[in-house]
């Protein structure tokens, strides 16, 4: 009897260990998959870099990097074709610059209003509206620019067409506001209350406190906000494709029709023969675009990190 019991216990123990082993094996497999999924972000990012280099670099066998960057003529179908991306580069720079100049003062002022001036209830009502703005698709903003803003710009500046860099820049300014407002507001919120109280105690008005205490203390956060807004503006595609006018010359004035790097890719890639020169050139444009936004975003991340460390003791 005792022996039987012992045998049963042993058998149960064996099957239990087996079950546990099988469970453990199953878990190992799942955990392996989880690890692979964890690596996915790196895989996709490296994949993008690899593809841009692989498809884009061959163009430099046809045209030198110098001619590519500074050439002023983009004629992919002429004979022989020329690939100078200066018109796109200058357009992107010009539109981004104007958009930033418009969006930064408005965005930072809006953030200061929300975090320092507005009664709590008003601020709580306004924030969701700013979030909605962030959610409006870029093609919708392009359409608004096309239908509503471009006639205004055309008549205000007496232009032949309202589809020009300025119109695109105004729409982009509006689109980069949400990120500028929310990141700046976070930075302003992080300013310790003691700073403001000390300022008030010295007899400073609310505005003097905002201008001389809050904004300087939050400056690196605001700088990050601006950089993120710039990154957004450089990479924005549909809006500039629809309202910037699409001219291929190097723009001289903001009211010229123009084509940004993003718009050049979007409008050209459909007609480009796969693996052909234009295809390669457009991937090279994508490579430059990617390098640009990556630099801007990494700088923003760096600055933001510094801001975070500032007030944590």
């Amino acid at each position, binding site marked *: 009897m005792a022996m039987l019991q012992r045998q049963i216990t042993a058998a149960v123990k064996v099957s239990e260990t087996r079950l546990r082993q099988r*469970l*453990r094996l199953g*878990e190992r497999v799942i*955990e392996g*998959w*989880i*690890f692979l*999924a*964890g690596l996915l*972000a*790196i895989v*996709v*990012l*490296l*994949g*993008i870099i690899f*593809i*841009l280099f692989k498809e884009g670099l061959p163009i430099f066998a046809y045209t030198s990097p110098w001619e590519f960057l500074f050439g002023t003529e983009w004629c992919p179908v002429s004979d022989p074709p020329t690939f100078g991306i200066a018109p796109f580069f200058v357009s992107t720079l010009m539109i981004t610059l104007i958009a930033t100049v418009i969006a930064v003062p408005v*965005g930072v*002022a*809006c953030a200061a*209003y929300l975090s320092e*001036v*507005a009664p709590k209830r008003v601020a709580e009502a*306004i924030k*969701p*509206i*700013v*979030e*909605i*703005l962030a*959610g*409006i*698709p*870029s*093609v*919708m903003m*392009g*359409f*608004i620019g*096309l239908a509503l803003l471009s006639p205004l710009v055309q008549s205000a500046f007496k232009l032949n067409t309202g589809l020009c860099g300025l119109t695109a820049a105004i729409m982009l300014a509006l689109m980069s506001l949400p990120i500028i407002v929310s990141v700046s507001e976070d930075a302003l919120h992080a300013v310790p209350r003691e700073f403001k109280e000390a300022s008030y105690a010295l007899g400073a*008005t*609310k*505005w003097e406190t*905002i201008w001389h205490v809050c904004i300087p203390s939050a400056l690196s956060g605001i700088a990050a906000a601006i950089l*993120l807004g710039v990154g957004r503006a450089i*990479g924005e*595609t549909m809006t500039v*494709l*629809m309202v910037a006018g699409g001219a291929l010359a190097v723009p001289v004035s903001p009211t010229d029709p123009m084509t940004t790097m993003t718009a050049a*890719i*979007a409008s050209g*890639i459909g007609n480009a023969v796969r693996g052909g020169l234009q295809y390669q050139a*457009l991937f090279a444009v994508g490579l430059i*675009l990617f390098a640009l936004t*990556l630099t*801007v*975003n*990494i700088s923003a*991340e760096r600055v933001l990190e510094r801001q975070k460390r500032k007030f944590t003791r």
Partner: protein
Amino acid sequence: MTTGVVNSRRISQRTALTFLGLATAITVVPVLFIIIYTIINGGAAISWDFLTQFPSQAGRAGGILPAIIGTFYLMLGTLVFALPLGVMAGIYLTEYARDNWLTRLINLAIVNLAGVPSIVFGLFGLSVFVLAFNFGLSLLAASLTLACQALAMVITSSREAILAVPREYREGSLAIGVTKWQTVRYIVLPQALPGIITGAVLAISRAAGETAPILVVGAAFLLPKLPQSPFDQFMALSYHLYTVSAHVPNMPKETVWGVALVLLVVVLSFDMLAAAIRIKTRRRKQS
């Protein structure tokens, strides 16, 4: 003298605060204007036929059914690829990853992935999914491309949601002999679910509005029938709005605003759904 200084300070204070209020108005008013204007102008075009018919005369007449269906397929496709992988990545980062160079590299990749311009994702999708994987210009290639783009957002929101689950839950579970994976699967994930869903809903709402990537990897303007398989081309609301507003001459204004309204309603209703889930779970946690 002193009163003059006080007065000028008071005036500059008033001017400055007015400017701040004005800046806020400049941010808020266009949003309300765009939404109200679109509802008024697009509302006239909305009818049962507009939502359930195929387009005719190059989109000038008829409805936009295939574009609506195409957009929903895209959202579904994005969700199917991005959600499981994104959540698993979130689990890895919160439950398994140690604080080492690899983890820092992953986090760096996520942040930068979020900043990659959408058209660059389009180029990536074209080269990898359309050409290298030979999926062609198709719903599948577009879904995968949009999923790559949505990945950063899904990972970030899952990570935040999982991080917010109190440590005691895990410790209690581990203490009674439950394995690590079972703890994650049956204790942590259910707790983090609302946060994960919020992120996923936002991500597919973003995918519904994306135009530049699908323009490169397979959206078509007019198709005679709905996509029958993942390898077919498709129509989408966002791409339809782009074409009818920028490329079709003599387009009835009303119809374009109608397309814009439908797109806006789809995108914003998913945004609101996400907000509703967030508010509801926050309330439940407080009580």
